[in-house]
């Protein structure tokens, strides 16, 4: 009796196991034959198949539930890539969608086709900040503080600045109609023929009443080296006794351009910077020959807006005791971004390396310290004074 109970129990236990095994087997084989149809996601690497699944869950739910339709899948994909890149936690590694990338690219080339007005969005209204000299905008009589209400009949209130810029720019020779609001006047329409606009990266002049040349570099754009050479030649023709290189509020730009700019002031082969990638490989960038200003007394103006390529130049000139740095400590961005153009012309800026000054000094988060600290206060700005420039002039005149 007892034995038979045990036997029955054993048998039914065995049977249950078998049934369970058959179920699992059937499920497994079925899963192999009919796997869940993962979306055709443009070739996920195998190691991503599992971790990305939760993204598709979220994507599905958004498409199933979200109250505003239709959804713009292109914008969602841009957001997705941007969000992934943001998760890297590096403020300099960024994704820029194709339309914005196009604007950035042409800006760094120093020329674009448009009307030649710098604009900003102020309280939801597209406002002209400045007019580029001898541009179509100037010829059409546009002025700073003018508000652009419509572009070709399209209302642009509260529009993203980039969107608005896209509307105003266009091929040379085409026309654009702007509805302008100026002060209390009735809004009026201006029709402007677009042209190629060049924004110089370099501005140069002799400082009035002195023998000192002044060069301002706004950004390390593609044409900056040529502009720099031209400017230096023109200044040198006036026999200056000293030079001021103004790198304040210069956010940087292309790394090779920083080498070209530094080469104007350094002896050939002097180290400009050392770049180290994450494997520790070091690359030394050296000054090219043919510098046009390698002996003249030099002051470099720096401030907390001098970043990246500006810091390369300032640190190199400091380490080689080629220049006296005046102003305040620089921003402290010592990383190199490689700019990748993706298949759809969007742009991925990736931090790929760090750079160090010729003496091996860290720049990232440290910045470059001036020899002579001169602050620029709010009061100075309000009164249009420039104590840093004044200090530079005084320094060059007293060190003759």
């Amino acid at each position, binding site marked *: 009796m007892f034995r038979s109970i045990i036997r029955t129990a054993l048998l039914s236990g065995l049977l249950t196991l*078998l*049934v369970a095994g*058959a*179920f*699992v087997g*059937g*499920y*497994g084989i*079925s*899963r192999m034959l*009919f796997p*869940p*149809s993962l*979306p*055709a*996601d*443009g070739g996920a690497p195998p*190691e*991503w198949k599992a*971790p*990305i699944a*939760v*993204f*598709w*869950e*979220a*994507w*599905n*739910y*958004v*498409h*199933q*539930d*979200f*109250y*505003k*339709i239709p959804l713009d*899948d292109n914008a969602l*994909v841009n*957001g*997705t*890539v*941007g*969000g*992934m890149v*943001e*998760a*890297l*936690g*590096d403020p300099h*590694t960024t994704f820029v969608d194709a339309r914005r990338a196009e604007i950035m690219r042409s800006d760094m080339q120093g020329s674009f086709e448009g009307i030649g007005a710098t604009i900003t969005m102020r309280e939801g209204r597209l406002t002209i900040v400045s007019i580029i000299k001898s541009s179509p905008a100037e010829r059409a009589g546009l002025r700073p503080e003018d508000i652009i209400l419509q572009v070709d009949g399209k209302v642009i209130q509260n529009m993203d600045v980039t969107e608005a810029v896209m509307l105003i720019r266009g091929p040379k020779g085409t026309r654009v109609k702007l509805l302008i609001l100026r002060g209390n006047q009735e809004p009026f329409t201006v029709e402007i023929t677009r042209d190629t606009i060049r924004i110089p990266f370099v501005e140069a002049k002799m400082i009035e009443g002195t023998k000192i040349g002044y060069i301002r570099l706004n950004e390390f754009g593609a044409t900056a080296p040529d502009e720099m050479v031209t400017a230096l030649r023109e200044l040198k023709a006036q026999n200056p006794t000293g030079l001021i290189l103004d790198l304040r509020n210069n956010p940087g730009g292309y790394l090779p351009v920083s080498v070209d700019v530094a080469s104007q002031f350094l002896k050939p082969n002097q180290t400009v910077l050392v770049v180290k*990638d*994450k494997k520790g490989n070091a690359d030394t960038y050296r000054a090219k020959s043919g510098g046009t200003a390698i002996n003249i007394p030099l002051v470099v103006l720096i401030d907390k807006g001098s970043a990246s390529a500006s810091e390369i130049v300032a640190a190199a000139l400091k380490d080689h005791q080629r220049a006296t740095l005046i102003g305040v400590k620089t921003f402290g961005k010592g990383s190199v971004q490689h700019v*990748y153009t*993706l*298949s*759809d012309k969007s742009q991925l800026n*990736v*931090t*790929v390396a760090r750079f160090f000054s010729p003496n091996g000094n860290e720049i990232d988060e440290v910045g470059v310290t001036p020899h002579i600290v001169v602050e620029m206060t709010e009061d100075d700005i309000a009164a249009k004074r420039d104590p840093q420039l004044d200090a530079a002039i005084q320094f060059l005149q007293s060190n003759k």
Partner: protein
Amino acid sequence: MRTILKLIIALLLTALVLVIAFAVGFGVNYYQVQTMPRTEIPQRFSLFWESWRIIQNDFYGDVPDKQTLTRGAIRGMLQALGDPYTVLVEPAPAQQEQSNLKGETGDVGLNLDVRDHVLTIIAPIPGSPADKAGLRAGDLILKINDKLLPFDITVPDAQNQLRGPIGSKVTLTVRRIGEPKPFDVELTREKYPLPTVEARVLPGTTFGYIKVTMETAETANEFARALDTLRAQKITGLVLDLRNNPGGLFPDPVLEITGHFVPNNVVLYEKYRDGTEKAFNARGGNKAAGLPVAVLINSGTASAAEIIAGALKDHGRGVLIGEPTYGKGSVQVIRQLSDGSALHITVATWYTPKRTPLDGKGLEPDIAIPLTEDSLKKKLDPQLDRAIQYLQKGT
């Protein structure tokens, strides 16, 4: 011979059962796969892999794990929708949020105050862990979990630190007047429904006052009990205080509460993306029948609390007093994702019974009474005063 036959039959039967089990297993997967939502992935998603490969090869810093990157990707996608309420909530907060809404957070049962920057026990709630551990009114709390409390400690901050999962422990360092040294007390958090309803008869009047701080699963019951208690005291009017009530669970608590004022009437319409509407009707509690009602609202009155205020207003069942409400008139569903995080997605927008949209605008009070810095400083409540006046004079 017969045994052999029996054995064969048994074997055949077993085989049949196994085949059926196999087929069922096979079918279950097939069904699952067939019914999974199909996604149309734009070709452009390859951009993601293109970017990832570049980052993996060239990025200077440490690349976070794939889960972090995936969550970043989800966040970025949601941001592109441009709706502040469609968000990803990561596992830890999501669990906390779930338990907060269900009223399942563990607590130690202390009524607290801050006096001269010191966290002070007003009273332990009878029967609570704090009570059982012998804490007393007037005890001063110096540290929570061995961490010195900051100078600017507030009661909500302290409550947040004291609350946690049911069964978890929290250690308090307590200073008691008359004892030479501070001592430690270890308390185990218990399910202690955070009261969301506070009720009393307003002194010097025959009016009841009910404050609802948020809507949880317990709120409707608390509210019904509060009404019972007040009606037993023969109140002749009611102040319903929804100020700084951020909402919470919807729809049950809302339909229960409104059911005491506008039984079985429409409370709100949800409008979906395809233009369809869904009406929500109040339940039938009707415990506030016949009572004039003044509803206090301000800019902290949001979401579920705005529905209550809007329904009472539109049905002429209550007069709104105070300041315009927050204007959170959209509905989110919470979708659990397989990694434990939760997705809040806006699925609809809200309209009051008279089809006033709540989205982004908020409700205007019938009687506008701002709360000034001055009255705050003097601890005056002109909004409540005005509500009492309204109930007394009917205007």
